[in-house]
């Protein structure tokens, strides 16, 4: 899919609308981290990822691994916009039997490449996909998205070290740095100090960007793909709940649903006519 910047922005706006609707309908789920990640994933799917919605199991597709699997409404919104699932399917979020399980699940939903829910697992899984691609002689990439709270898990750093050891130029990572985790701001829960310096020290190619500036995001994806000899990480400064004023930078909306009135306000802020 080739889209220009304003088209990708519109794609992301539509996804935001679906995110707040899904979480409101279920009266449960994780809007904050879905809204912070959505510009990054929108750009990835709309401009780069080699996938075939009509053939989701195509073996030579690029992989996208949403390791912060609680932010599943963001993923489902993208999959609906891309045509992997229907917009009607979005109503099955957290509903018995639905393809849109609480946490993204490759057994349940077409287009989902990893069964997430436990933080700190996706980068290792992505590394496995990257090694398999090399063994296959394929130029497909593995893209992984983690949260900033998530990188407190030790297993993330086991993968970080191993990926440089194996010179996995086909492994690409986004860190969604929204500054908030489950209970509180990261600053209160676990200070991480200089995150880019940590990835640098592990031998990764590192770029820091504004995770809501679409031009920077698309450029960063170009940059990521140009790196071939080692894994690359884009550290995106984001705002949790971005696009809905009362959710923005508010730890309460990590895992809480909007009320009816809040939904109406959110939709109007996202440009939906009443």
């Amino acid at each position, binding site marked *: 899919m080739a889209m220009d910047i304003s088209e990708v922005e519109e794609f992301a706006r539509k996804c935001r609308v679906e995110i707040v609707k899904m979480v409101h309908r279920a009266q449960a789920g994780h809007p904050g981290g879905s809204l912070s990640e959505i510009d990054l994933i929108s750009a990835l799917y709309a401009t780069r990822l080699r996938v075939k919605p009509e053939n989701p199991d195509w073996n030579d597709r690029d992989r996208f691994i949403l390791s912060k*699997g609680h932010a599943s409404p963001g993923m489902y919104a993208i999959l609906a916009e891309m045509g992997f699932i229907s917009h009607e399917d979005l109503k099955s979020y957290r509903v018995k039997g639905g393809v849109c399980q*609480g946490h993204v699940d490759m057994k*349940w939903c077409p287009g989902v490449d990893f069964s997430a829910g*436990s933080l700190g697992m996706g980068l290792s899984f992505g590394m496995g996909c990257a090694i398999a691609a090399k063994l296959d002689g394929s130029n497909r990439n593995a893209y992984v998205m983690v949260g900033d709270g998530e990188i*407190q898990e*030790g297993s993330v750093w086991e993968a970080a070290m191993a990926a440089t050891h194996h010179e996995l130029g086909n492994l690409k990572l986004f860190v969604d740095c929204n500054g908030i*985790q489950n209970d509180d701001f990261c600053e209160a829960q*676990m200070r991480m100090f200089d995150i880019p310096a940590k990835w640098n020290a592990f031998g990764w190619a590192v770029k820091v960007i504004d995770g809501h500036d679409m031009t920077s995001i698309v450029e960063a994806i170009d940059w990521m793909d140009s790196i071939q000899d080692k894994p690359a990480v884009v550290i995106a400064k984001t705002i949790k709940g971005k696009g809905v004023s009362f959710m923005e930078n508010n730890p309460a909306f990590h895992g809480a649903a909007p009320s009816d009135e809040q939904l109406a306000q959110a939709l109007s802020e996202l440009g939906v006519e009443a």
Partner: protein
Amino acid sequence: MSRMAATRDGYGDALLALSDNPKVVVLEADLGKSTKSLHFRKAHPERTVSCGIGEQNMLLVAAGMASNGYIPFASTFAIFTERAFEQMRNGVARPNLAVHLCGSHGGTHTGTDGSSAQSIEDLAIYRTLPNVVVMHPCDDVSTKALTMQLPDLGKPSYMRTARNKTPVLYDGKEDDIQIGKGVVLREGSDVAIIACGVLVHESLEAAEKLSAEGIEATVVDMHTIKPLDTDLIDALAEKCGAIVTAEDHSVIGGLGGAVAEHVVGSTPVPIEKIGVQDRFGESAGAEEMLEMMGLKSHHICDAVKNVIARKV
């Protein structure tokens, strides 16, 4: 209608009540709001150790503190305690350090978060560890009472709590609750239903339905899975001649496994196990999950009839 409450709230209340003991410390892994250790954290930030999202580190930090004379209470979701299983085995259980681990949101009853969050194996795995006491209470009062007894236990423990509210059974009856002692909630001599957690309530409901059909069941709240109250089980096997176990947990290795392992070597009687049949759950409401997994009172009634038919 009885009072409704979540067992995790009983845990949170107990930690706060225990805070008079200056050796009691709390460890969190970014889920204190959910496990309810947050009340302790607010009152005693200086004795609360935030470990970030790092369960493996949390367990061994707790072990180190226990070795220095502290009484650590560490909690996260039941499923995420499992990531630190080896830490629990080699770093806590083997040196017999009195670390108290609480796993909240256990079982399929936890609901719409889906299969990744629904621990159905925690009771089984912790039960395999020497020295470790394993508990799964059914209401907030008993959860609080059991937690209050832990500082005197002198060995490690694992307690599963649940996310959602269930009826309260023990208001004013705190003294009935003792680690390692099952509670007989109802007497009957046709069958013994031995249950833990959320399924205690389903079992009581089943016993009422069965009574209407002329079948009288004993119902036991077996809140401690290890050490198992084998005296009580032997007495019930003798008296009733048939046992049904009930738990929101895999039928492999949990309460049902523990009871069967014991009974086969003492007073062999037919047993039927109500539990999750070796499969994963999915996203659905708490009640829908119990129905889907075969854990409702009507499933227990069917199991009772089957087990009675197998009596010799």
